[in-house]
């Protein structure tokens, strides 16, 4: 047949209209273009103008259309009619649902507001949900940070006023060396990939530190296959090497950090180990000009890193002395840590040398004049082109807080934080711990809480403890067990409520948190707690209200279900009061808006909270006459003011002379302006304010002008964290507020004001030689992806990946089965070999496994047959030590769930029909999805 070309229309119409909103297929908040045909969403791609993703979009984002049309979507409010966990519901009206909720919650608020535990999951509206909880009056509020990122966030805030991801990012355009630590294949998804591409394009080096060489670590130039839980030790060995060689930025340390601040050296003083301060409370340094103590911020002061201050026979040494003395110890030499970390000593030395070479030998300056908070003007900006990014891999250990601290100390010693080429904050960060609220923990019947429940404690006086020493919060956040639990401990809520410890609650109210499945440790145990009854047959957790858009595993355990919309059907705001979308060079926030209206009887959860708040008469949600203050969430977004002139959205407010940004009165047309601008607002940081932000007058003034703060708040980076020392002092017997004796040693040892490393192998874990981890695949986000037919064809089940050495030792081939046993439980699952893996580590994808009946999947879906959860092996408490106490499987500083401390052993098992354990199916109010999909809009 001869060559023959048919006619072809190469310019077909693409869509009727493009509606620009914000993605919610994960937590990255990329801008998306929803291409509409016949009023329906036909195709989704990335918004080129958007500050986060600049047009690109990941697999999840493009598959959003499948999530939006998921057969697992809930259709109407549900009231439970069968036993909890059966999945038997009847549909009810919204009036009935809201009346039930009001009837349950109003008496609680009247008598004991703390008996409502309100916890949200992957909520991106925490400044709103937290405000609602505060108005209700319960301290028992938090989101999912306690089992996710609190170590990373808190260590960053206390050390330098911000952390990674939403707080800041590498200077992608100028960095010459990037070190990634413990980064799974997301967080943040597209910006990291775009940044790696920039580095690759100009030949900058990437070092990936991760037990698993996949994803970003697969494209890294150097892979450091570290043994889990030893990152802190490795980092401190790098610090050792850099100190020993004097390859640290002394000028930076003396000017911008507390390295020169004098530490009280009098062991008899109640302030031993705290900073010396003047009568105004300013930290003291030795001024090299005079050799005398002076406040650190005095104009013209030259803080001395070397000098000690002798007074009344006592030598007070600067932080730098304490730091150098500790880390110059041979305990931190590469040879001393190599075996523990699973990294050869020469490789540690080579990495230290490379950090120093790039930071100092490839240093450059930017020709930008700027003035610091002491009034000194600098002609240029000193670049240090070394940057770091880290995530949950180093955080989700019981030594995670101190490990994250160690990483920040490393980058500060190199002088790279906020330097060109280094790590840069994104507005509203930097913001030091003392500029955040402290916790507000004590409920008053019928009244709001006196401030936000969550915050950053400065010392024992901020703990959430009643006068008798008992915890004020159901999750025991802000107690001596974990004083700096700034994100709460969501993973302890259900077990504590079940145990009535520290007290019984009445209603558990949750949003978007799959606690009956992948978001809990000890999943089977949590399910039992949710369904457990007392002698009279009443549930031990009396009432559960849950909101979700989909039939997730948790829905079956609710008594009342408030169905949420999909992300394309709702208003949201991604606020500068909360977790905004800023970039280092711009403050930015964004909205979601209903690009389509729901075709089911569902409502956006935040709108429901506005309604419920009005029904309960919560201050802030009712007008003076008792009428509802906000018709819905859009009304709140537009008209709420947190402080005069400051609202959820910064763009297009009403100033004295027309539209203004940042500060201004509410503008009824604000949301229209956002929609017209592609769903977001961004305002640039002026060039002279773009670096050295914590100390840069131009930045501080700009931040005040925009309303990010109400006064300039320059501060020093805290190599030495004084609040930790305050808790140690209490444990040493100082002060009125005293920890219980059984916690004194833990507080003295673990709340060290300088970073430390300790092994997290708990007693009772001997005989479990392997580390077991999970990570989230790039193409899937937690459980949400399982209902997505496009994504589940990529990740439909999750084998357990074993290193080659273990495969050989146990005579295993791909597809064979193993028993995996932890001190707590056993699972039986299929295996697959992976060579690019630390020899003592096994891992699997997180949350691919599903429960039969959930997510509109059929019972024979591989997610429900071969797929499995590692969660069954992890207990919220450590194995018994024989001391009569049960210790939390959490970080002793922040309470972060120590998911990645899991130790296991494996043995070959006979082939199985299904991964074990198999939980019985739940009935489904939505039924399974269709047998075939072949759709095209506009036809």
């Amino acid at each position, binding site marked *: 047949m001869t*060559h023959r070309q048919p006619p072809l229309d190469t*310019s077909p119409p693409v869509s009727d209209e493009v509606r620009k909103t914000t993605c919610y297929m994960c937590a990255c908040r990329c801008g998306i273009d929803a291409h509409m045909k016949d009023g329906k969403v036909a195709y989704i791609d990335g918004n080129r103008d958007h500050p986060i993703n600049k047009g690109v979009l990941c697999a999840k984002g493009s598959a959003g259309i499948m999530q939006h049309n998921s057969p697992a979507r809930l259709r109407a409010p549900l009231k439970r009619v069968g036993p909890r966990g059966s999945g038997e519901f009847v549909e009810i009206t919204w009036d009935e649902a809201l009346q039930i909720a009001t009837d349950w919650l109003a008496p609680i608020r009247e008598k004991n507001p703390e008996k409502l535990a309100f916890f949200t999951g992957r909520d991106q509206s925490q400044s709103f949900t937290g405000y609602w909880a505060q108005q209700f009056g319960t301290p028992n509020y938090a989101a999912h940070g306690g089992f996710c990122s609190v170590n990373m966030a808190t260590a960053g805030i206390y050390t330098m006023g911000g952390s990674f991801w939403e707080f800041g990012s590498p200077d992608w355009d100028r960095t010459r060396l990037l070190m990634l630590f413990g980064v799974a294949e997301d967080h943040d998804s597209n910006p990291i990939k775009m940044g*790696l591409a920039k580095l690759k394009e100009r030949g900058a080096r990437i070092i990936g530190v991760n037990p698993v060489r996949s994803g970003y670590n697969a494209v890294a*130039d150097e892979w450091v296959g570290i043994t889990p839980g030893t990152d802190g030790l490795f980092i401190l060995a790098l610090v050792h090497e850099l100190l020993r060689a004097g390859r640290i930025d002394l000028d930076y340390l003396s000017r911008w950090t507390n390295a020169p601040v004098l530490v009280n050296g009098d062991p008899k003083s109640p302030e031993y180990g705290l900073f010396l301060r003047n009568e105004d409370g300013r930290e003291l340094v030795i001024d090299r000009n005079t050799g005398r103590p002076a406040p650190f911020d005095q104009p013209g002061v030259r803080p001395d890193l070397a000098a000690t201050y002798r007074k009344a026979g006592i030598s007070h040494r600067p932080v730098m002395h304490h730091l*150098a003395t500790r880390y110059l110890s041979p305990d931190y030499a590469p040879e001393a840590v190599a075996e523990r970390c699973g990294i050869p000593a020469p490789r540690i030395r080579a990495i230290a040398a490379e950090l120093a070479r790039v930071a100092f030998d490839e240093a450059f300056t930017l020709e930008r004049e700027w003035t610091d908070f002491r009034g000194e003007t600098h002609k240029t900006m000193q670049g240090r082109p070394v940057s770091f990014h880290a995530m949950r891999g180093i955080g989700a250990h019981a030594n995670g807080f101190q490990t994250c601290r160690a990483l920040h100390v490393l980058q500060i010693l190199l002088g790279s934080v906020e330097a060109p080429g280094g790590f840069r904050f994104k507005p509203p960060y930097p913001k030091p711990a003392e500029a955040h609220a402290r916790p507000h923990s004590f409920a008053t019947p019928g009244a709001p809480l006196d401030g936000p429940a969550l915050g950053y404690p400065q010392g024992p006086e901020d703990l959430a403890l009643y006068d008798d020493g008992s915890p004020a919060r159901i999750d025991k956040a802000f107690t001596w067990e974990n004083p700096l639990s700034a994100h709460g401990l969501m993973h302890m809520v259900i077990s504590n409520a079940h145990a009535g410890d520290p007290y019984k609650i009445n209603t558990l109210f949750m949003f978007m948190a799959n606690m009956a499945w992948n978001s809990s440790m000890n999943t089977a145990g949590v399910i039992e707690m949710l369904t457990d009854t007392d002698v009279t047959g009443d549930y031990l957790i009396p009432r559960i209200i849950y909101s979700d858009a989909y039939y997730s595993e948790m829905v079956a355990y609710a008594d009342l279900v408030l169905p949420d919309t999909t992300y394309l059907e709702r208003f949201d705001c991604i606020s500068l009061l909360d977790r905004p979308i800023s970039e280092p060079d711009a403050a930015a926030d964004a909205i979601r808006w209903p690009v389509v209206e729901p075709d089911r009887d569902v409502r956006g959860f935040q709108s429901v909270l506005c309604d419920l708040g009005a029904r309960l008469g919560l201050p802030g949600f009712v007008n003076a006459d008792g009428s509802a203050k906000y018709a819905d969430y859009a009304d709140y977004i537009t008209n709420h003011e947190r402080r005069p002139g400051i609202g959820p959205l910064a763009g297009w407010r009403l100033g004295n002379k027309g539209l203004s940004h940042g500060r201004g009165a509410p503008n009824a047309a604000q949301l229209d302006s956002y929609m017209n601008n592609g769903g977001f607002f961004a305002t640039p940081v002026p060039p002279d304010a773009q670096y050295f932000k914590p100390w840069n007058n131009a930045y501080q003034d700009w931040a005040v002008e925009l309303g990010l703060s109400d006064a300039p708040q320059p501060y020093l980076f805290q190599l030495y964290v004084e609040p930790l020392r305050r808790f140690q002092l209490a444990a040493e017997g100082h002060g009125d507020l005293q920890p219980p004796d059984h916690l004194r040693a833990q507080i003295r040892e673990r709340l060290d004001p300088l970073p430390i490393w300790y092994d997290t192998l708990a007693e009772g874990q001997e005989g479990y030689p392997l580390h077991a981890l999970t990570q989230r695949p790039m193409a899937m986000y937690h459980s949400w992806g399982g209902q997505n*037919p496009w994504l589940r*064809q990529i990740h439909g089940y999750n084998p357990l990946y074993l290193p080659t050495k273990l495969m050989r030792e146990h005579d295993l081939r791909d597809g064979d089965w193993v028993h995996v046993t932890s001190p707590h439980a056993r699972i039986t699952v299929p295996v697959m070999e992976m*060579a*690019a893996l630390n020899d003592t580590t096994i891992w699997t994808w997180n949350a691919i496994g599903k429960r039969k009946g959930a997510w509109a999947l059929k019972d024979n879906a591989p997610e429900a047959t071969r797929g499995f959860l590692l969660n069954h092996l992890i207990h919220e408490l450590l194995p018994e030590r024989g001391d009569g106490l049960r210790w939390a499987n959490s970080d002793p500083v922040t309470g972060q769930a120590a998911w990645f401390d899991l130790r296991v052993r494996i043995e070959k098992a006979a082939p199985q029909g299904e991964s074990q354990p198999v939980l019985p199916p739940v009935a489904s109010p939505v039924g399974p999805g269709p047998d075939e999909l*072949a759709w095209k809009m506009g036809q």
Partner: protein
Amino acid sequence: MTQLPSRTDRKLGLVIDLDTCVGCHACVISCKGWNTENYGAPLSDQNPYGAEPSGTFLNRVHSYEVLPDHGAAQLVHFPKSCLHCEDAPCVTVCPTGASYKRVEDGIVLVNESDCIGCGLCAWACPYGAREMDAAEGVMKKCTLCVDRIYNENLPEIDRVPACVRTCPAGARHFGDLGDPDSAVSQLVERRGGIDLMPEQGTRPVNKYLPPRPRDRLEREVDGTALFLEPVADEPSGFFAWLDKALEKI
């Protein structure tokens, strides 16, 4: 059987950077979304919520482990779609003329109205790049987004294949590989781009850029020069050095 054109005016194709591809599957799903909604029949999915879901994809990412002679194992992500071969066996094998290669740009397409679903082309393709759509019974393959790249309803900057537009890692490049001066040809030249399975004699237009060498930090500089020289071994020596160093600031 169907003839190929004797020559094409241009050779449009993709250059895929295996050094940079992180294996995120963004290209896979973006392709699925665009081509479900556009050229020809939608890309259907069978058993989408059940056991062994199986749908039509025009682009898939495979991952392979590589065991180098020295150093740690490596993982390479390998996206694969039609390579728009110059000597495309899928075209010559087609009994109806439904498969064809365009003269103006070299894109290999299937005219779905002439496709009888015999599957010979998929059998003939050594790359496994064609997939039969089970719902429609026609052969589907990468169109290089022929309905995007010339589409006057799209802004000019968006007239690239969906997979290229969406790739977050910048690992996919689109252009005329018949023009030695084009950006993609230059990139192939600079990075030593390669053909996939050249022994098959298909002369693929798409090229792959090989991964750069990994794990060479210790080997870059010989011996001790690599390591940092200590200023002191004891804290006291360090503080003496510190005092002197501060004088110089």
